[in-house]
């Protein structure tokens, strides 16, 4: 019997099996941000165990509220900053160099095929795009990860999601994943790994695969995962060129992290996306999804483009292509947050920032910002936001606010008209 990629990664990292069905894995990466890490740090200090298992495997960023907005967020940032300095953690990203965690860590080449990754953040599943096992955890798991470099998981069960057919022009990874979540439901993949396969995924860029894997948690999935291929190697090449004699050699090595043809799955689902329209959520759950045509015309007060789902350069390009030469509606506040300084710089060089500003958008520094309603665009009661983020829970962007999730192109089109709009109709 063959193995899935997740089973291979588990087998290669198995440190202990204290009880049947419980796998304690050794970790290649423990990622930290300023919201969930400070309590772990405080607890470690309180226990007299203020240590880090391997400072080169721990990567740290201040991203959720940055620059700090008040004394409390300044304190969180300070706890993380002081800790990173105290332990001489080399890869620590503070104001001026920081960006959204699930965008900046892959961009720096920290995630590789076959890795095990945890972070105190549910969207850690994003990193599975590289053929890694990456899972969001709570602060206690994070604390043990920091101290011991291990984390416990149940035996992996995988749902294979085959994406077939060909996407129509203007339909992108975000639409695919919203559609898949709509079909699976918010707990359709609980305790499961979502393995994204098929020609549509093979043709996707790393950015698009990250968008896909990012939202695995919205179906309850532990991790989204894609098979490493030449696209993965090309993305990582600047960081791995000293390790391999050629890209082909890297690809050959990474092939060990591909599911076997006779691997067994919990379920196999097929989605032919040839006729898929752009998708938009309604209500307060990410599985409440409809084609844009059914929600078109819904007025919006704010449009937010950015986040770990859709704040990468490809996303900004797609939005800018819609916005070019146009102005957003007077009734709309447009906010764009490039997810990392590199993305910001690239967008500047490509003229994308100018397009956003000419259209009337406010361009913020790289941060999570409005995504979780903590800064940079919190909604007032009864306000509606068209957003490229991943979560539309009640109150997510501010108490009493409504969030509609959609692709960057749909968000840009909605900014122009002030109503939810299919970008292909403009």
């Amino acid at each position: 019997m063959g193995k899935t990629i997740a089973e291979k990664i588990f087998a290669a990292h198995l440190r202990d099996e204290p009880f049947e069905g419980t796998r304690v894995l050794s970790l290649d990466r423990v990622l930290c941000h300023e919201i969930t890490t400070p309590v772990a740090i405080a607890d470690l200090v309180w226990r007299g165990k203020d240590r880090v298992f391997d400072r080169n495997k721990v990567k740290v960023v201040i991203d959720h509220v940055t620059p700090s907005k008040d004394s409390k967020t300044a304190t969180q940032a300070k706890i993380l900053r002081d800790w990173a300095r105290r332990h001489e953690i080399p890869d620590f990203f503070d104001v001026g160099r920081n960006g959204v965690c699930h965008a900046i860590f892959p961009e720096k080449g920290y995630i590789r095929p076959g890795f095990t990754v945890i972070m105190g953040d549910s969207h850690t599943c994003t990193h599975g795009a590289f053929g890694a096992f990456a899972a969001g955890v709570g602060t206690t798991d994070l604390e043990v990860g920091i101290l011991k470099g291990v984390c416990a998981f149940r035996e992996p069960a995988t749902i294979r999601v085959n994406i077939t057919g060909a996407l129509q022009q203007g339909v992108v990874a975000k639409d695919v994943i919203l559609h898949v979540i709509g079909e699976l439901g918010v707990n359709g993949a609980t305790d499961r790994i979502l393995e994204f396969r098929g020609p549509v995924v093979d043709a996707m860029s790393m950015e698009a695969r990250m968008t896909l894997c990012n939202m695995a948690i919205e179906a309850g999935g532990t991790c989204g995962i894609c098979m490493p291929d030449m696209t993965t190697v090309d993305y990582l090449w600047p960081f791995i060129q000293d390790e391999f004699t050629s890209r082909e050699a890297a690809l050959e090595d990474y092939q060990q992290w591909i599911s076997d043809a006779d691997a067994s799955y919990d379920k196999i689902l097929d989605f032919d996306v040839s006729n898929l329209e752009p998708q938009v959520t309604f209500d307060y759950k990410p599985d409440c999804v409809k084609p844009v045509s059914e929600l078109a015309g819904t007025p919006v007060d704010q449009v937010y483009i950015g986040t770990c789902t859709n704040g990468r350069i490809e996303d900004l390009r797609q939005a800018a292509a819609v916005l070019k030469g146009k102005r957003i509606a007077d009734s709309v506040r447009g906010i764009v947050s490039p997810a990392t300084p590199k993305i910001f710089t690239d967008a500047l060089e490509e003229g994308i920032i100018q397009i956003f500003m000419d259209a009337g958008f406010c361009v913020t520094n790289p941060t999570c910002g409005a995504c979780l309603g903590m800064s940079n665009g919190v909604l007032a009661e009864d306000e509606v936001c068209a957003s490229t983020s991943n979560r539309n829970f009640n109150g997510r962007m501010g108490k009493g606010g409504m969030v509609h999730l959609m692709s960057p192109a749909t968000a840009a089109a909605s900014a122009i008209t002030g109503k939810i709009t299919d970008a292909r109709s403009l």
Partner: protein
Amino acid sequence: MSSKKSFGGPAVVLDRADINTDEIIPAKYLTEVTKEALTPYILEDLKLEGFDPKGNKLKNARVVITRANFGCGSSREHAPWVFEVNGVHTVIAESYARIFRQNMFNCGMLAIELPKNDIDQIIALEHKGDIQVNVDVTAQKISVTSGSESLDFSFEISQFDKALVEAGGWVEFADARY
């Protein structure tokens, strides 16, 4: 992050599926760096007809009884913590989101799973009056009482989860072993 807990007590019923961690503790309170500071904000944004997050029912509760996929969404351990500091160390639900369930056991608390049918019976009992839950972790049994009526159920937790409860949490367990 934890110490050994006591389980059971008066219960509050949250009769809705898919209650997410943003509802249990909204993101705006994630700027707190102690668990105790979260205390007043428990379930502040819960969307549930007739539920009062400031009411006595919740204030007196030591047990939460709820439906499927409890604790979905954000990984924030602030959700189990806000229960912990309010004295709620036991949650009984049809099912959980993975991270929330693990966070509960990692804190040495109990996330008990019962079939829908059992939860239906418990909730029906609640309609008759306040309910009280007794938990026997070793025997993996609970009894639910309302007035003169009482129902018994057994539950399954993995050996690992049980060991975490006995150790007082994952930090204690891992520290002793790795």
